[in-house]
């Protein structure tokens, strides 16, 4: 198979096309590697400002800003358990209400029998 018989334009499109796809995605990679850094920098700056306002002298560590997947999963699990098991947190006072019924003679047994004495 001699691919050299393909004209130069085809080769140009092949090589250049693939190269542009690479460049486009490498460009995106660059941006998305930078974005978290900018966001972290912004958060740190805001925290430092907040500390200064509160007159606290605490340095903001990088580790404090990173929340790992495990931590998030643990928080999510705790919240899920809290919201779904609320029925356990009850007053423990059981009240049995007396059911009051008005007297009605419509099915009273007394009226369904003939009050005739049996001969003894």
């Amino acid at each position, binding site marked *: *198979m001699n*691919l050299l*018989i*393909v*004209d130069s*334009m*085809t*080769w140009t*499109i*092949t*090589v*250049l*096309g*693939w190269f*542009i*796809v*690479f*460049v*486009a*995605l*490498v*460009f*995106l*990679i660059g*941006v*998305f*590697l930078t*974005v*978290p850094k900018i*966001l972290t920098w912004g958060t740190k700056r805001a925290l430092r400002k907040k500390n200064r306002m509160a007159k606290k002298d605490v340095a903001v560590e990088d580790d404090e800003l*990173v*929340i*790992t*997947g*495990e*931590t*998030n999963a643990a928080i999510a699990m705790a919240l899920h358990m809290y919201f779904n098991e609320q029925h356990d947190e009850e007053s423990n006072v059981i009240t049995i209400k007396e059911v009051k019924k008005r007297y009605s003679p419509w099915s009273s047994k007394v009226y369904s029998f003939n009050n005739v004495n049996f001969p003894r």
Partner: protein
Amino acid sequence: MKRFITLFGVLSLLFSLQFIGGGFEAFAAGPDAAGDTFMDHASKGLETFWNFTGFHNVHFTHLIMIGVGLFFIFLAIKYDYEPLLLIPIGTGVILGNIPFLEGYKIGLYEEGSVLNYLYFGVQQGVYPPLIFLGIGAMTDFSSLISNPKLMILGAAAQVGIFATFLGASWMGFTPQEAGAIGIIGGADGPTAIFLSSKLAPTLMGAIAIAAYSYMALVPVIQPPIMRLIIPKHERTIKMKPPRAVSKTEKIMFPIIGLLLTTFISPSALPLLGMLFFGNLLKESGVTERLADTARNSMINIVTILLGITVGASTQADYFLTTDSLKIFGLGAVSFMVATAGGLLFARLMNVFLKGDNKINPLIGAAGVSAVPDSARVVQHEGLKSDPNNHLLMHAMAPNVSGVIGSAVAAGILLSFLM
């Protein structure tokens, strides 16, 4: 019952009135003005009816295509290979190959027919961007945002597109046709339809069917190549879990992605624009109703229309040509080259990565796009080598970047070849 008998009796009495006074003899033997008897009329009517039926117009090519349609339906139901695509396409193939008499606005290629109206969306590239909108609203890009370097695997796997473009040119296709065939290597049905509708409308049926068939066959095509290229000890590499991604990053991703990719490749604007728009609807958190429609009702409707019309576009007389066979051959090669490209690049990346930053090279195969099937295949193969190694989340990164990569590649081909 009694009423029915009465009604039937009255009707038959009325019908028999015409035979009174010698009418019956005339009915049996008398020729009309044109000299035709009742029997002539009846036989002519039956003959016309026969000419209209599929049995009269059938050609063995129709039967072959109906067999193909049935095979697609079989694959979808028996093996669960992309049933959402193969069932509509398979039914469409059967629908498009029912033999009929032309000239009555029935067929897909006949101006004014219902199928022709539905096919408009394919011909003019309306459906693919709508599908991309739904994909965007469905896809979670967090794994890609958390580890952006995996995006490069999506670019590496696009080698399939350009290698096939080269191969198709070598086989004598025009540059436009070669470009349209090459996109099969992008393993992305909507992109393939979009590009072929612009560059080579006559080959669109074959290209779309090839793309969707190979996408459905990803679980068959990819594993042997993975086992061939990646040694066993590399298949067991465990990757560190992706970091948590903030909401701000998730919202920024579609906006930045949209701006960057469309500025680089404006020809892919309908695809990339819709993809990132759909994702913004999902991630913004304030347009849940729109995102919900895009990822459910709308994508389902468009998939039905796209599947059935693409299937019906394979009318035997347009489809069964040597060109179609060549396209199928090239498509298979392009899928293999794309998979191999992603895998080899992943191994190359590992040369430069140290310690626990190393990646499992299997995820390179997911760079071919074919969302999410190729990522699923990676997960499956990873589990075979180590039952505790879950690669799905990691594989989703090259997988979705493959979608972006193939859309960018389509835009580049479009701008070079239009």
